[in-house]
């Protein structure tokens, strides 16, 4: 190395170190600024959600409380779209928002890459959520990667007018007693209804199966090594047989696949008399059944409590403002804010304190004959005792199962043939 070259190298090293020190100072500043909350540095945070989180008013409120923070809210139309977007940008290593909302269904596959998300655990948010809600977002090292937003405790929605025509009780307490708290009693009530009415009892065996499988701890994968046991687990087969017997052999199902055009149209045509409904489903029913009178909610759920859906807010490690993002996520998922979101769009809170809040208890739903939905779903949330284990293959295996049930329902295959295809499908996931 000549002298001149050495000088150049030295200059370069100095320059680099200066830049490093400068940038270190800068990042220190922003970090200390945000924790005190009084920093003047302008920070723009991006927040990506999907469907309806009910955050529009809350964002305005937060910006008023923290004048230095501007929030850019990106909304995807569907959760699938959000999932594709998240996966692609996670793979690319850039382009994610500071806060990314994720849905409980695709949480398991992301848990494999939990190191790509910041650990959000802190004393402030400890015990904020229902146990099962926080447990699902905690990885094996005990890092909490997502703050729970809403949850989907399930009740039974029913058509009181159809119940009346069939000579069954219509009052929601009596209906709850009639439906009972086991699947057997729910199906037995269905047979009684069927004897007096031409209308099917529930919408589809796929949706009913979903309610059942979410009550079993070990279904498709072993907890320890994530080995796929879906095809050999007697419990899965038992649920499959039970739901096929009730829906097909006993004729309780309307054979309408959820979210299909026929399913949506059936709300206007007495398509079915009952369905499993998580809190967020109320909005869906109300939208589809516009002008139909008689929908009501019974405070019971077969086989104990059950949860369907719900989301989390995460902060990917890609975020340039992790501290500020964490603070915003913590604020948005605080009980007070979640209750506001519930009132705005029906996203039912997953926070402990929210469930006992008198404000929540007073919420009623006029479309469902003024049912006290706040109280009903708070009780339904407390009834959830089992956290089903969902590993990385949960999503595709459950998809294969739903298709197996659809094949039985549209009569393109016998239950036995369809099960065999399910076994082959799961194997192909390899």
């Amino acid at each position: 190395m000549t002298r001149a070259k050495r000088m150049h190298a030295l200059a370069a090293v100095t320059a680099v170190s200066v830049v490093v020190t400068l940038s270190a100072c800068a990042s220190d500043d922003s970090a200390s600024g945000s924790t005190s909350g009084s920093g003047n540095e302008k920070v723009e945070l991006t927040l990506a959600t999907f469907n309806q989180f009910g955050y529009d008013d809350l964002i305005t409120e937060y910006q008023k409380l923290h004048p230095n923070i501007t929030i850019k809210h990106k909304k995807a139309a569907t959760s699938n779209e959000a999932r594709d977007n998240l996966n692609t940008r996670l793979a690319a290593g850039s382009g994610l928002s500071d806060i990314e909302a994720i849905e409980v269904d695709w949480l398991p596959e992301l848990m494999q890459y939990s190191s790509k998300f910041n650990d959000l655990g802190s004393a402030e948010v400890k015990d904020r959520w229902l146990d099962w809600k926080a447990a699902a977002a905690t990885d094996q090292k005990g890092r909490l990667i997502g703050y729970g937003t809403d949850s989907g405790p399930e009740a039974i929605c029913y058509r009181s007018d159809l119940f009346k025509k069939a000579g069954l009780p219509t009052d929601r307490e009596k209906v709850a007693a009639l439906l009972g708290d086991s699947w057997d009693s729910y199906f037995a009530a269905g047979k009684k209804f069927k004897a007096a009415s031409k209308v099917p009892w529930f919408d589809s065996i796929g949706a009913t199966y979903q309610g059942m499988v979410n009550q079993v701890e070990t279904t498709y994968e072993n907890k320890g090594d994530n080995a796929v046991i879906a095809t050999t687990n007697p419990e899965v087969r038992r649920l499959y047989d039970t739901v096929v017997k009730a829906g097909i052999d006993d004729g309780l199902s309307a054979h309408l696949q959820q979210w299909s055009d026929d399913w949506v149209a059936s709300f206007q045509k007495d398509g079915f008399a009952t369905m499993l409904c998580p809190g967020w489903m109320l909005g869906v029913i109300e939208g589809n059944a516009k002008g139909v009178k008689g929908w009501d909610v019974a405070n019971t759920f077969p086989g104990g409590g059950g949860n369907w859906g719900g989301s989390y807010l995460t902060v990917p490690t890609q975020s340039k403002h992790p501290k500020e993002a964490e603070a915003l996520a913590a604020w948005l998922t605080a009980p007070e804010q979640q209750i506001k979101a519930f009132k705005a769009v029906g996203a039912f809170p997953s926070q402990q304190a929210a469930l006992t809040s008198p404000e929540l208890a007073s919420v009623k739903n006029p479309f469902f004959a003024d049912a006290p939905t706040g109280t009903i779903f708070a009780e339904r949330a407390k009834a959830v005792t089992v956290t089903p284990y969902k590993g990385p293959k949960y999503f595709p295996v459950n998809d294969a199962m739903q298709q197996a049930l659809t094949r039985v329902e549209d009569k393109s295959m016998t239950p036995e043939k369809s099960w065999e295809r399910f076994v082959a499908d799961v194997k192909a996931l390899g």
Partner: protein
Amino acid sequence: MTATTARPTEGRTVPAGERSAFRKALSRWDARVSPYLYVSPFFVLFAIVGLFPLLYTAYVSVHEWNLIGGKGEFVGLENFTTVLQQEYFWRALRNTLSIFLLSSVPQVVFALLIAAALDTGLRARTFWRMGVLLPYVIAPVAVALIFNDLFGDRYGLLNEVLGWVGLGPFRWHVDVLPSHLAIATMVNFRWTGYNALIFLAAMQAIPRDYYEAALIDGAGRVRTFLSITVPLLRNTILFVVITSTIGGLQIFDEPRMFDQYGLGGADRQWQTLTIYLWNVGWGQHNFGRAAAVAWLLFLVIVLIGLLNFALTRRISSTGGKR
């Protein structure tokens, strides 16, 4: 190149003979190389956005590759052999070909007929010509939404109407052929008008003398269409057939929007190769296998494209060899 051209003109005095010899060489070079330079932007772009992804996909296809986890071990051709053993791959291939045939063939035939109709002296010609392009302007997803409503198994309008004349009800979302027909209908709705306009443009380039001569010879409408129009449109038909082959084999939007899950049916009744690819890559996060499917799809398209080329060339011998 600039360096070599700059040197002789600068400073050093050059004998006149040498200079003109260099000029000559330069202009020879100019004539020989420049055309390639002029067309190079396309090829440079193609190399970046076409060739590179193609080769990179090949690289991905011989590795274990997770969407998020990234590259894994080198596995050779294992991804290809696994894909070829999957029943769903073959079913997807069958569906793709069936939907392709059900859409492309009627599409080209109807487009030709519509173009022939538009080529006659209609009143308000521009209105009709714009009208046939209208479906093309509508987003495919919107088309799918509307057609899905029509093709509802139970409460759909189409089954209701067919019921009046004692047909059906068809299970559009359950049985293989009805589902393919429904999807092909959406595709045809969208593309027939577009192709008709291409044909129309070509038809208007046909000298009217031919028709007059044929008329004097006593040929009817059908005869002139078959003996003059079609043979003279040979090259255009070739173009339309090849582009609609490529498009038809990559069909994605319509089948994906055909039901709420977007996977091509519970028994993969209408899952096409692109949906299969998408599902393997984004649903199962298995990029290695998805890349293998992509390459297989590429080969299928090349194969069928060549087949089509050979077939369409035979349309008529009067078109003259080129």
